[in-house]
């Protein structure tokens, strides 16, 4: 059972070095550690999952037994079709709730584990629904807030005696490293944000210089 995980470790290594490349000679030395990490994780989780299995088994039994009993009640009804539809709808909701409960448990474990890694972060709060857009009011508020941050950054650079460049402002506000290329992505992130929030960067620079 555990030995088979070695093949998974090989795949994990080969897939992930495409994202963050490393020296090929490290492969031999890292593979045993990756395999060991996965194997110990399997052992640790096994104790927890084994206990959960009994609880899930009981939950499934409750649900399926309810279904069987409800079905027998429907079969005694004079209005089998309509009662059957109502009961089916109710049972479907029970199934959905049961599946959602399991999915949440698994997600909570995986997200919690990933968030224990200092350089990785998965948000746990509910964000904007996928595919939805920000309201105009929210976008305007975000733009005003970001404009203020840009002004503060420009003043900070000028006051420190540095040369004022867009790159310097971008690094202060959107500093970051592109993991795929290893390059500083702050200027492009900054540019994209200006465009998205429809902010006139040269006008802000001019305004700060005039006020100064």
């Amino acid at each position, binding site marked *: *059972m*555990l*030995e*088979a*995980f*070695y*093949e998974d470790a090989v795949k994990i290594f080969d897939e992930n070095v495409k994202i963050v490349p490393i020296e090929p000679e490290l492969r*031999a*030395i890292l*593979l*045993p*550690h990756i*395999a*060991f990490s996965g*194997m*110990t994780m399997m*052992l*640790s989780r*096994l*104790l927890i999952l*084994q*206990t959960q299995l*009994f*609880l899930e088994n009981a939950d499934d039994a409750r649900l399926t037994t309810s279904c069987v009993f409800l079905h027998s009640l429907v079969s005694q009804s004079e209005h089998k079709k309509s009662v059957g539809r109502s009961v089916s709808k109710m049972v479907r909701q029970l199934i959905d709730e049961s599946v959602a409960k399991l999915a949440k448990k698994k997600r909570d474990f995986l997200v919690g584990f990933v968030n224990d890694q200092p350089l990785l972060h998965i948000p746990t709060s509910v964000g904007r629904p996928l595919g939805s857009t920000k309201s105009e009011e929210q976008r305007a508020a975000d733009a005003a807030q970001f404009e203020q941050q840009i002004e503060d950054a420009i003043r900070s650079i000028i006051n420190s005696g540095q040369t004022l460049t867009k790159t310097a402002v971008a690094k202060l506000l959107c500093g970051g490293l592109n993991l795929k290329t290893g390059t500083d992505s702050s200027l492009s992130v900054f540019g994209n944000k200006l465009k998205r929030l429809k902010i006139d960067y040269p006008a802000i620079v001019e305004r700060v210089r005039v006020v100064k």
Partner: protein
Amino acid sequence: MSDPTFDGSESPAEIAKAAIDWFGKQSHGPDFSIVYKDSIPLMKYELQAGDVGFICLYD
């Protein structure tokens, strides 16, 4: 307890044995133990699920 060291020459079976040995030495409940049968490490633990008790053995 520190992780074992590897030099890259270990077989999958040797890594699995190291994982089981390492895991066996971590702190667990009294119902958990690592036993050996014909030099093969087996993970053994007992579970209480309501009125039913289980003894599980994994190789």
